[in-house]
């Protein structure tokens, strides 16, 4: 039952810090430019994570270096957008890390729900 060589190993990247996790989750929906990532991260986290330009590109730099995301060559319609913008997308490794991290968090929630004597986490209605 060895893993297929095409599937990158996400283990060294898990767990992800909140900011990179949210960026990866946003890019899992599709390609985005810097500001769109910033805005969507804020929406996705209900305003809990508000990134500024510096922290956004600092995290993007690390995700690029780790090979979790890459710059996209696909340009949107130039009439609709500034062509100087850089777009980013998830790599296969990034997607694997995203899945692994969500799986880890889901297991954590599940175990906490089962094991906690007090109700730390509300049961789904």
């Amino acid at each position, binding site marked *: 039952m060895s893993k297929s060589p095409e599937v990158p190993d996400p283990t060294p990247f898990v767990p992800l810090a909140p900011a990179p996790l949210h960026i990866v989750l946003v890019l899992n929906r599709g390609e985005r430019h*810097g*500001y769109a990532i910033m805005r969507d991260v804020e929406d996705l986290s209900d305003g809990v994570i*508000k*990134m*500024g*330009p510096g*922290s956004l*590109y600092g995290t993007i730099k690390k995700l690029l270096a780790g090979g979790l995301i890459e710059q996209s060559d696909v340009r949107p319609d130039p009439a609709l957008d500034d062509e*100087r913008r*850089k777009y980013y997308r998830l790599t296969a490794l990034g997607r694997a890390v995203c899945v692994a991290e969500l799986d880890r968090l889901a297991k954590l929630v599940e175990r906490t729900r089962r094991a906690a004597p007090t109700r730390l986490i509300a049961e789904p209605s």
Partner: protein
Amino acid sequence: MTAPVGRNTELRLERSAAAYRRLLVAYPRPFRDEYGDDLVQAFRDLMMTHTEGRGPWWRAIRDLVTSAPRQRADALMGGRRGPAGLVALVVVGLVPAVALIGSPSRSILFMFLVVIGLPIVGINRLHRAWLVRRTTGGRVAGLVVLGVAAFSSDAVLLVLAGPDRGWWIGASVALVLIVGSGLGIAWGIASLTAAARSRDPSRRRLARWAIAAGVVILGVIIGAGYNSYRNSLPPPGDHSVAQASSETRALWEAAGRGDVETVVRLAQTCADPWVQFPVGDGKHNARGYADERLLDLPDAQEAPYAEIKRVLAGTQSSWARRCHAATS
């Protein structure tokens, strides 16, 4: 009416973007070169989306203050993460913090500047000079001259920061040494950790010995600093006698007995010049005897010091002669 408003908004946007671009100097150059335009673009988008109030600026400044030091630290540590980077950051952050604590920490700061600051700033400069030599093919003699110049300039800085200089000279020199020491320590730790991970076993061994020696030296400095801090505690009433060192207790007891000669002798021989003891109505430290402020006291407070001045006049130390000259 729409067009002028649009032009004003655009002008405000351009000005804000230009101002934000200037602030990007807080980030290290490679980061700026790679992402500077993207940062400004994101800031412009932020401004365009939030056109009212100072929200975008507040968010951008807050972000700059938190992310720029992180990028600087990453650049300083060559992108490496781990305990060495953390230790370097703690040390770099600790030094200015110690400087800000207040007078009890002056001895620690002074010792840090002299014991650590001077060699590290010098070694750091030597290393830079070595890099210059390696890249430009310069001569070793030039390297030696650079090294001597580096150590000499540091020595001049310390002399300039002597106790009789203005506070601003002391503060400027302290700032230079603190920054230099911080960078030097960070550079040293980064180099040593890189060497400790080297594939060359002899280099790895050497780095580990150097790290061990560094830890021991740091321990000695912290211990000596703590001892110095204990010596600088104020007299009983403010703190317990048990907290003070034997040297400090002896001074206090002599001052309490009114034994001025013993006070003066202990003040002259005590290891820590900042040690405090009560004289008359006030508290003074050993170095305070050489301070002109002592000689400018109102007449009502002059009496307790008359005997001290008489004893000082009989000693041969330079500061005592100055005291005597100033009072005679």
